[in-house]
Each structure stands twice: as C-alpha cells, then as structure tokens.
C-alpha cells in the first residue's frame, strides 16, 4: 500500500504524507491523465486492471481502494 500511496502522490503532485483514504481527489487534478496513470499504477502494484470509467467517478482515495480486490482500506 505504501508504494501505491507514493505513486498516487506523484500522480496528484502532492506530498505522500497527504495521501490517506479520506484524501479528496476532486480537489487535486483528478483528470483524465491522472486516471490513466492510476490505471497503470494499480496494474503495477496489484496486477489488477480497473476500468477508467469507474475510476473517474472516485472522489476519495478510499473509493479507489474499493475497486482493487486485494487492497484493504487504510
């Protein structure tokens, strides 16, 4: 999960300490390019392909984690 948070911080251009399940995506450049990068990140870290259209609807980091079967919240 640490690598996932680090990757997400890089995508959203924020310090890694800020990434928690409650982190709000809608306030931080959660655009189509961030979604594409996140699809790749989840594939790399969890070997799971999430749908871009599902990902784009996420409003928090916890929402993303719910889409990944092997990722537990927190």
């Amino acid at each position, binding site marked *: 999960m640490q690598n996932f948070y680090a990757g997400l911080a890089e995508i959203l251009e924020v310090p890694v300490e800020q990434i928690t399940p409650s982190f709000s995506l809608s306030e931080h450049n959660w655009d189509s390019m961030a979604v*594409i990068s996140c699809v790749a990140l989840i*594939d*790399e870290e969890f070997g799971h392909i999430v749908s871009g259209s599902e990902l784009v609807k996420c409003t928090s980091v916890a929402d993303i984690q719910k889409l990944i079967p092997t990722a537990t919240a927190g």
Partner: protein
Amino acid sequence: MSQCSVKGITLRGVVCALPQHRVENDYFTGRFDEKTIKDVTELTGVSTRYMAAPEQTASDLCFAAADRLLEDLNWPRESVDAVIFVSQTPDQRMPATACILHGRLGLAPHCQAFDVGLGCSGYVYGAWLVSALMAIGLRRVLLLAGDTSSRMVDPNDRSTALLFGDAGSATAFEYDANAPLCYFDLGTDGKGANFLTVAGGGFRPVDPQATDANYLHMDGSSVFGFTIGTVPKLIKATLEQASTTKDQVDLFALHQANRFILRHIGKKLSLTPEQLPINIDQFGNTSSASIPLLLCADRVEQITTTPTTMLMAGFGVGLSWGAALFKDVQLQCASVITV
C-alpha cells in the same frame, strides 16, 4: 483470440512516406496552455509529427511508398497478385481506394484490390490476410497501410490534437517455400466500439446539430485499460504458440499508441529498450502505419542485414488487436521518403 500459423510467407521490403509538413509542439501554444502541453507530452511522448497537406490523402502517401518500393525491389508491376489498402481515411466513399491505387500504380487486371477499414490493428490484420491469400496460391502481395488522422482530430481536444500524425506505408510480401512458419493471433471486442469513434461520414444518421460528428472521440482511460489488459497477454500467447521465448525475439514492433502505454507494456513483459523501440516522439501515433514506420525509421540496418525475428502487435480502435511473429526476416530494402 484466434490463432493460426502459415508457411511460406516472407517480407521483402518496406517503404514509408511522410508528408513534408513537420509540426513541433510549439505549434499548439496559444490553443493550449504551457502546462497542458507539457503534461500531454510527458504522457504521450510526442514531440513532433507530420501532417498531410489539405489536398493530400493517405492513398497519396501509400502510392508514393508503393511506387518507390516496386522500383527498389525491381518488381514488374504485372507480377503483383493483390494490393490491400488498410485505412480509416479512404479517398472516397466509393470506389474502394485500393482500386484507385491499382490504377495509379499500373497494376495488372489479374491483381486483386480491396480495402480493409481498420486502424491501429490494421497492419497486423493486413499481414494475416496476405498470408491467407498466399496459402491459396498468390505469390506477390502489396500491403498498403496509412492514415491521415490529423484530419479527424478536434483541434481543441488536448487528448487527441497533439497525439496523432499522418503517414503511409507499403510492404512487399512474397511467397517463399523455405520461409519459416509465421504465427498470428487476432481478436476483437466490439463492446468497446464506442471507445474510439468518428460518428459522421457513414450512413447512420447523426444529430444534424452536432458540430463534432466528424471529429475523433477517444475515451482515453478505457482504451488504456483495454490495452494494458490485452496486449501483454496477446504477446505472451503468440510467443507460446510459436514456442519462442521473449529473449529469442530481436524486435518487438508494437503499434506506437502512446509512450506511457509502450513503457508500461515493456515493463510488464521485462523487454529491453533494444527489443522494444519507441519512435512516437518523432512521428506521433500514425495509426495503421506505425509498425512499418518503426521498421523503416528505426531499424533499417537490423532488418536489412541480419535475419531478424520480429513480433508485431497492433491494438486499438474496434476494439481490435492482432500479433504476428515472423522468424528470420531479412528485407531487401527499407526506407522513409517525404512527399
């Protein structure tokens, strides 16, 4: 996916044709802000691309490439048994552009000519069709693949305006009884047909008020998810079918969709940069021409001087995908021209 292997087909030469108008990223300054251009460039990898002149079509580019190819190979025009034109930007609604090209190239009446309306997967589908034609007795076939996608992009859509480039290609295939088996793996997922579309130009009525019906629409994240979910499996299945390891493949010639996608696939399959050339930075995504353009622009010496085992893979609009593995290919000519 459908798999098959075919004996007796080999590549003799490839020529690609680019339009003269080279467009750098600063061309887009003013339409997009600096950060957008920087972010898109980082993701797609495209620094320059070539755009066709207003009166120039994909068939003009393919014609120039084919004309040069026939000269370079010293193939008499009457020796060509079939010409296949793969494109999503044909000259007219009718006749088939392949028939127009047949006339311009001065090919013989016995020569078959037909179009295939595929994009990013089209080159591999074309190669598979060539192999099927050779299996029933044809001996020399020209595969012409090219697109002028720049004509279809919405200049204000950041996800496509900077991505695409125009190019045409001509590849000469010949029957050779001694050629090793070549392997194909092809597939389709029509449920993703709406991920990449141009709604206008066909016969299905479009909203007459719609101003963007003739523009290309791309659901980038869905196409990306499809690609990384499908292509590594496709490549693994093709290698398995051919009883070949990835280390035995000298060249993975992948459709140049986007640099981020290509690097991700390379990482997933542990391919070296030497095995997986990327040239989207120079030409953009050239749709059906990107695989031959990779061969002509980046690997001329390798493929003309050394028997090369290459795996080609095309994937995208359809959704459609295909891979082809050719062993010990050595071409007589490969070049890029501008017209």
